[in-house]
């Protein structure tokens, strides 16, 4: 069921209409659409909600979602007013995804661009294999986060679990709290002025005003495992 509320907001109730119709409608939206505001009701933990959107529209999902919400998002701003299951915003290209609650495993996995904000905690493997996405987590993140992270930024206001940044490439990690352990080839690095500047922008973008860049530590690649060397075999 779709209702037109005023001229701007379209509401879609997943308790009454199938997921296919919702995604099909969202895929019809192009740049310059005047249907820029969307509201999705009763997601009830459903999977693949608002995936593959390619238009600068706002989508508010009223409730918790299952796997892969906002997967491969381009340009859209998707806000989940609840928690998100595994793989939220996976392979996001651009746009913004905000999770008001917690996020499960693999949040922002392989994301190429855009901003993912998780206002609660994120589970294990947050930012795994990230390729340019920026991720800001207000709470804590689980183990093996930023595994094989290639580029982009992961900002954590809380603590990080075991093996942060294992086998990391050129992504930059900023953690305000404690890091339980660092993964292979991940080391703490100096916070230089350009990092303060980048972090300030990321925090601003995520709407965070109660954290200062100076409270964070930076982590990144030691670049010792970039080319195979038998004497480093113990690290693998």
């Amino acid at each position, binding site marked *: 069921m779709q209702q037109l509320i005023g001229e701007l907001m379209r509401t879609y109730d997943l308790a009454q209409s199938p*997921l*296919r119709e919702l*995604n*099909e409608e969202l*895929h019809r939206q192009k740049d310059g659409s005047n249907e820029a505001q969307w509201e999705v009701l009763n997601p009830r933990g459903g*999977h*693949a909600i608002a*995936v*593959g959107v*390619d238009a600068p529209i706002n989508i508010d999902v009223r409730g918790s979602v*299952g*796997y*892969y919400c906002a*997967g*491969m998002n*381009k340009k859209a701003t998707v806000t989940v007013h609840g928690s998100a299951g*595994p*793989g939220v915003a*996976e*392979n996001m*290209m651009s746009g913004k995804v905000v999770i008001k609650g917690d996020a499960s*495993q*693999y949040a922002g*996995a*392989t994301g*190429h661009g855009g901003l993912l904000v998780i206002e609660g905690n994120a589970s294990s*493997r947050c930012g*795994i*294999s990230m*390729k*340019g996405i920026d991720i800001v987590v207000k709470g804590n993140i689980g183990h093996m986060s930023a*595994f*094989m992270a*290639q*580029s982009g930024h992961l900002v954590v206001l809380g603590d990080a679990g075991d093996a942060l940044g294992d*086998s990391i*490439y*050129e992504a930059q990690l900023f953690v305000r709290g404690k890091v339980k352990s660092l993964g292979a080839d991940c080391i703490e690095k100096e916070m230089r002025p350009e990092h303060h500047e980048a972090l300030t922008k990321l925090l601003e973008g995520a709407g965070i005003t109660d954290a200062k860049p100076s409270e964070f530590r930076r982590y990144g690649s030691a670049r010792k495992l*970039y*080319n*195979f060397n*038998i*004497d480093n075999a113990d690290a693998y």
Partner: protein
Amino acid sequence: MSPKIPLTTPRSSAVFDDYTLSEIRRAAATGIYDIRGGGAKRRVPHFDDLLFLGASVSRYPLEGYREKCSTTVTLGTRFAKKPIELKIPITIAGMSFGALSANAKEALGRGASIAGTSTTTGDGGMTPEERGQSKTLVYQYLPSRYGMNPDDLRKADAIEIVVGQGAKPGGGGMLLGQKISDRVAEMRNLPKGIDQRSACRHPDWTGPDDLEIKILELREITGWEKPIYIKVGGTRPYYDVALAVKAGADVIVLDGMQGGTAATQEVFIEHVGLPTLACIRPAVQALQDLGMHRKVQLIVSGGIRNGADVAKALALGADAVSIGIAALAALGDNDPALEAEYEKLGTRAGCYDDWHEGRDPAGITTQDPELSKRLDPVRAGRRLANYLKVMTLEVQTIARAAGHNNIHNLEPEDLCALTIEAAAMARVPLAGTAWIPGVTGAGGF
């Protein structure tokens, strides 16, 4: 003067043969395992161990050049709105831009398009050259997700979720620094010149239940139009195929240990995974037990070289086959005309497999601009098309001789085996007997 004692002839060891000893010396000198491209080189039971029976009094044949023998195949009939129609059941396997030069990828697209079949991207994403020259292009969705983006996904004609491959089931990929050119680095979002590892598992799903949801996501993003393939290496084919069907696959690609890779450890290639011949019947059995044989199509790959191999794979229950190493040979890989250059690399034509080093004199497995220029994509594409046509004619020749007007009517009853091992794996009788080891007793016909 003491009598001369006769000397025994120098005797080399069957266990410590020349290759084995050279590998021990190489390992001792370098401290690193051997990496190479290609598939298993050891002798394993294969299609050569099967024969077609042909027709006679009990069955009658079709006229070779007159009576029609259909070769078309449709892939993705289960859920996809737009299944793929191919003129021939021989497809080109996934090989990456990065592992191969842009010219080689273009040539594969050209050859496949002329012959009426599909080609497949690889780790590293889709290049415009490849999309432009490939009438039907399958887009691989890999654990690394290098170059993965929804625009290319939508441009594809089918999506192949790669779980594993026959050369290294359970292993990830490797592209060594020598082959990371500016363009490859940019497509993969990594610094130039570093070793690129491709993960062995997908980053955002584990197991068949997750895979079902991943397939839902891919279908939703692409409007349920495109066939979804699942590619697995030959490990536990009965269960892997059953689970892929359960997860919602339209097509299953099953790759045996002779299937090639761009680069991995020699020990992995030669010692992990099943021969292609051993994979097919368990896979078909799984489809039959689920009532899905011919509804979910099965593509078999790993060591397919000629029309006889294709016909044998189809007779055992496959819907199509896929070629990689053979396609590269058709383009010009390992050509004896380049013998002098192979010798400079310490190898011989036919043996060259250090594809990861990027020094391929044929200009195929390289990113070196000068070497790449040696491959003319138009002429190489024509050679591939010719080869595909020959294989197709060979399959038709065999099918007609067995009395079939459609190559997909080939069946296990058309075959016998030359060895007990092949008979057991292919579940066809040992030649001249009614004995299928593990299935029937030794008596009677």
